[in-house]
C-alpha cells in the first residue's frame, strides 16, 4: 500500500517525532516499501486448528506484596534533565481551560 505524506505526519505525531518537511518524501517512499514488504504475510491463510504452540503459553509469575524498594530519589534525579523540589519539571501542561485539581487517568 502507498502511504501518503499525511499518513507520515500523523504517524510522526503519534510517536511524538518531528520529521522535517524535506524528509517526508523519503519516509513516505521507504515506509510504503516496508509496508508492502511486510504485507507479504497477508497472502498466507492461517488454520488455527493446526497450531501447536498457541496453547502452551506460560503463566506470568506473581510477586509477594512486600515493599522492597528504598527511596533513591537523589540518585535517580541526579541524572534527570530538569528537576526542582523533588519534582520533574516540564513545560506547563495546563491550558487556561483546565481546572487546577484535575485527577484522572486516561
Amino acid at each position, binding site marked *: 500500500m502507498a502511504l501518503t505524506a499525511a499518513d507520515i505526519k500523523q504517524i510522526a505525531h503519534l510517536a511524538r517525532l518531528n520529521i522535517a518537511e524535506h524528509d517526508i518524501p523519503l519516509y513516505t517512499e521507504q515506509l510504503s516499501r516496508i509496508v508492502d514488504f511486510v504485507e507479504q504475510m497477508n497472502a498466507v491463510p492461517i488454520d488455527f486448528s493446526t497450531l501447536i504452540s498457541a496453547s502452551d503459553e506460560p*503463566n506470568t509469575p506473581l510477586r509477594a506484596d512486600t515493599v522492597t524498594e528504598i527511596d533513591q530519589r537523589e540518585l535517580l534525579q541526579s541524572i534527570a534533565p530538569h528537576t526542582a523540589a523533588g519534582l520533574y519539571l516540564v513545560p506547563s501542561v495546563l491550558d487556561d481551560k483546565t481546572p487546577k485539581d484535575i485527577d484522572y487517568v486516561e
Partner: protein
Amino acid sequence: MNWETVIGLEVHVQLATKSKIFSGAPTAFGAEPNTQACAIDLGFPGVLPVLNREAVNMAIKLGLGIQASIEKKSVFARKNYFYPDLPKGYQITQHDLPIVKGGHLDILLEDNSIKRINITRAHLEEDAGKSLHDTFPGSSGIDLNRAGTPLLEIVSEPDMRSAKEAVSYLKALHSLVRFLEICDGNMQEGSFRCDANVSIKRPGDTKLGTRAELKNINSFRFVEHAINHEIQRQIDILESGGKISQETRLYDPDKDETRSMRSKEDANDYRYFPDPDLLPLTLTDKQIQEIKSTLPELPQEKHQRFLDQYHLSAYDATVLMSSRALADYFESVVAIVSNDHAKLASNWVAGELAAALNKDNIDITDSRISANTLGQLVLRIADNTLSSKTAKTLFEALWLDGGDVDQLIEAKGLKQVTDTKAIQALVQKIIDDNPAQVADYRSGKDKLFGFFVGQAMKESGGKLNPQQLNDVLLETLNQNR
C-alpha cells in the same frame, strides 16, 4: 419535552496493597514527591514489571463480591500515549481480556426499592503520577509517587437513569470495596475515583444518544452536580436543535461546570497490544476457591442471610451492610438480644446509632456505645423495662457519658411503670383534672383519646408502658359512655 437519561460509570479503585502493582515501591499516600517512585515506576531503561499477587487477589475478591465471572486467562496490554505523568509512554492495563467480566450490584433507590445495576467488566491497571501546577510558573512539576499504584477499573453497563441512581451505585460500590477490604475508599486522596458516561434520549428510544464522558468527578456530591449539569447541557443543546458531540468533558468543581477537554479530531490512537514483558495471567479454580475461602462472607450472601435469618427488609439489610464494620456491629447486638429481636436491633443500629455516628462524624469502629451496651439497651426495650422514649433518653446519656444500662435506668428512674394500680391512679387523676375534655370524649369526640395519652405520658415523664396505659385509659373513659 421528556428526556430519559442514560448513565454508565467507570470507577477507578486504588487497591490497598502495600507495594505497587509492578514494583516493590511503597504505595502510602502523602510522601514527599518522587520518594516512592523507584526505577521501575519511573520507566528507567532496562527495568521490567512483575505482577503483585495481592493486586490479583483483590481483583478476584471484587469479582466474587459482584458475582462476576473470574476469567481463567487475562492479558495485560499497553495503552500507548504521551503524558508527563505516564513515565513509560504507555499504561499497562487489561484491554481485550480483563480479569473480571459481568456481575452486578444491587442499589437502594430513594423509594426504598432495589435496582440491579449490571457491571460490564473490571480490569487491573497501573495508576499514573500527578502533575502539580502552582509551584513553578510556566512549568508543571511531576510527582510519580502514585505511578504504578494498582487500580481496578470497574465499568458498569449504562443502567442508571438519574444522577441520584449514579450516586447510589457509587455508594454501593464504595461500601463493597471497603467491605472486601480491597480499598480504603478515601475519595479525597483519590483512592476511589469516578468517570461518568452521560447521554440522553427520548423515552422508548432503543438507540442510545451520543455520550459525553465526564472526568474528574471525585466526590459523591460532585458526581451528582456534574451529571445533572451535563444532562441540562445536553437537553439545552438538543432542544435548541443542536447536536451532541462525543467528547471528554472535565468537571470543574470550583465553577460547578463541565468543559470540553479535547475534540474528536485530536482523538488518541492508543495502539493497544499485549505487553511482551508480562505473560498472560492464568488462574485456576483452586486459586479462586482459596481467595473465596479467605472472604468471611460475601456481601450478597450476607445480605440474603440478613433477610432469611433476621427477617429484615431488603432496605434494612442494605443499610446495615453499608460497611462491614456496621454489619458486624449489628450482628454483635443481635447475639445479645437473640434473633427474635433482630428487627428491633436493626432499628437501633441503623437509626439512632447511625444518626449519632453521623452527627459526630465518628466511624462505627470508634462508636461511643459498644455493641454490648446497645444490646443491653435493646433487651430492656424488649422486656418492657424501657419505653421507646426512655430508651432514647438513655441512649443519649450513654452516648455522652457512657455507663451501665441497668444502673442508669435505676439512677435516672427511667424504668417503665407497669404496675396497673399506679397507672389506674394516674389515669384517674387525669380524668379528674380535665372534666370538660372527658365530657366531650364521652359525647363522641374519639379523637380526644390522644389528648389523654399525652397528658398521662407528660405526667409520668414518659415512663408508662404505652399498651397498658391504652388499656387502662380505654377502660376508664368508656365506663360511663
